[in-house]
Every structure is written in C-alpha cells, then in structure tokens.
C-alpha cells in the first residue's frame, strides 16, 4: 500500500512539476529551437517533442535540481532542433559503426594535461568541436548523466554517445599536446 501510495503521489506531483516547468520555461525553449529552425511551427514541434521525451522517461529530469533541469532541457531541445533541421534539409549524420573499445574509450584528460592550458583557451577550443559532441560532453561532464541516460535523452544509441565522447576528449587531448 505504501509503494502504491508513493507511486500515486510521485505521479501527480511530477505531472504538476512538469506542467509548471513548461509554464515557466516554454518561451525560452521555443527561442532556442527557433534560433536553429527559423520556423515557428517547427520550433513549437521541437518544444512539444522535448516534453514528450521528458514525460516518457521522467526519472532523470526529476532527479535534477531546478537550475540543472533548465540546462538539461536547453541542451536536449537544441539537439532536437539540430536533428529536425538536418531531417528537413536531408542532412545525414553518420556515426561510425564500430564500437569503441573500453581501452580506447578511457581517453584520459589528466590534471597534468589539463593544467597545461588555461580555462579560457580550453573553452574556446571546446566551442570549435561539432555541436553534437559538445552537447554529449555537456550532458556527461556537466550534468553527470550516464551514457544510457544521454542515449535516452537524445534518442541516439549508446554507441553513438561513447563515440561522440571519445572523439571530443581525443580532440581536446590532441589540441593540448599539439599546442606545444
């Protein structure tokens, strides 16, 4: 009875919270989508798609605190908008089919490596990475999502998540080493 009661409370509470989140941030999210899509209906559809994804798998969203929820939604809707733009313009994003091995995946950005570059320079370089890699890096390192959670949020495979993270980290490492 307790678990049923908690499930009921959690569900109704989540419904209210999600609805409130929409009320407070829909304008912002629409603006992000519109900045990519430049089409009113497409941008509204992107907002709708975001909340469909949040409602479909709400666990991660509700585990985040308020300001992190905003960041989470911002990144997701940007990705949704990029995907919609690519679909509209028949642009295909090709992910490599081979799996990244566990050894390769562990591209190490140790302190002594990161210590060789200033934060501003690192930031400037990250901004040059492909947007899809930047967003996976943000979800992983800033919002601390697991690969499975990122895959669910962006509607991509876990392999794609690992690849984007791998290439992002490898690019950062190469940039730092080649700066010398």
């Amino acid at each position: 009875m307790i678990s049923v009661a908690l499930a009921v409370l959690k569900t109704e509470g989540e419904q209210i919270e999600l609805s409130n989140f929409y009320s407070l941030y829909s304008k912002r999210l629409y603006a992000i989508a519109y900045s990519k899509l430049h089409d009113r209906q497409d941008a509204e559809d992107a907002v709708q798609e975001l909340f469909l994804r949040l409602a479909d798998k709400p666990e991660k969203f509700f585990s985040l605190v308020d300001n992190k929820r905003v960041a989470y939604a911002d990144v997701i809707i940007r990705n949704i908008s990029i995907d919609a733009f690519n679909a509209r313009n028949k642009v295909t994003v090709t992910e490599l089919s081979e799996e990244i091995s566990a050894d390769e995946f562990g591209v190490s950005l140790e302190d002594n490596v990161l210590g060789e570059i200033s934060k501003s320079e690192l930031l400037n370089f990250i901004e040059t990475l492909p947007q899809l890699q930047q967003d996976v890096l943000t979800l992983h390192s800033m919002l601390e999502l697991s690969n499975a959670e990122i895959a669910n949020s962006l509607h991509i495979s876990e392999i794609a998540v690992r690849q984007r993270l791998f290439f992002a980290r490898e690019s950062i490492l190469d940039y730092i080493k080649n700066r010398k």
Partner: protein
Amino acid sequence: MSENIIKSVLEEKYFKEFDVYSNVPNHFFSFRHKRNMKAIFANTSAANGTITRVRFNKQFVTIMVAIIFLAVLSITAVAMAIAGFFTKEHSDNTELFAINYENAPMEIEDIYYISALPIGFEVYSKSETKISITTTYYNQSDDKYIVFSQHTKESFNAHIDNEHGEMTETTVNGYTGLYYADNAGLNILVWDDKDYIFKLSSELAKTETENLAKSTKLLK
C-alpha cells in the same frame, strides 16, 4: 579533479551560450501547440500505469510520517533550520522541508488564492490533489506566467539552487518565508502560515511578486 576542470569549463560555456535566452521576445503559442501540450500533461499521469486512489486514513498518515521521520534521521549532511524550514545542504542545492507540522492539516481544507492578480492575467491551468493545489496564471499580451501553489506542510519538499544566488529570509503577512531569484530570472517566494506552505514563482519584478504573495486570501 580533471573532471571538475572540464565541468567548470562546460558550465562557463553553457552560461555564455544560453544567457541570451534569459530575456527572449514574446511568443504566442498556437492553439494547436497548446492543445497538444495539454494532452501531453494529461497523459503523463495515465501513462505511468494504474493509479490507485489512496485513502488518507490514519494508518497511511502514520506510515508517511514515520517514513519522513526516518529519512530526516538518516541525513548525514549538515542540517539547519532557516525561516521555519528545515534545510539539507547538497553540493549544488538546498533541500527544504517544513518543520513542526504536528498540528497542521494533513489534507488541504482551506484553499487560498491570489486576490490582487495584475490586469491581464487569467487562470491558465490548475492542478489539485488532497495535499497540493497549483494554479498557473498567464498574461497573453505580456506572455508572462505566475505559478502559485499551496501544499500541506508534511508533503512539502523543494530543491533550491544554492550555486547562483542566496536565499534570504522575508515575511509574508507576518509569517516567515524565504525569497530567492533563480538563474532564469524568476522571483520565488516560499512561506509558512503554520497550516500550509505556499510557493509563488513569477516572471514579474521582485516587488510585484512580493505584493502578489501578500494579497493571498482564504477562498470562502
């Protein structure tokens, strides 16, 4: 440590990119979109499986109180009380609970509302359970929202960002409360009138938000 450096850089990058969206032009969503969004929120509760109505009998209430009490006892982080709220500090947020709810209603018996709603605002949506009521008001010409919620003290729980602003103590109609502004530009007030906890989130200025809070009255 290296992950902290990356995290710090990514946070800076995020704010640099998305700060521009803190103040965005007005947009009036189409009727089709609003209809679809209502359907999404209506389906959220249904999509989570069978919902069984729970009777708030004495046994249920006793068990809920015991669960909450045990959860409070298991807290290892520094716990403090501020403005009548019990707080638990996490690394990036402060969790609020109500304290001293022994004599407070277990269900909402008296309903409160904002009596001095600014011109142009109308009720946009309302969600009501036995332990919380949330009303969203919307001004179509300004495209601004006000969200007002009332909670039983036992059920109240909120996470407040403590990284980008501070909570300050305030009073609303003689009752202690908390004020904070979140990083999306919302002014938020939370206060306790000994029976219920109220939360008001608004896109209006701080003074206007405070005046709205002060205008809350019992619905008769």
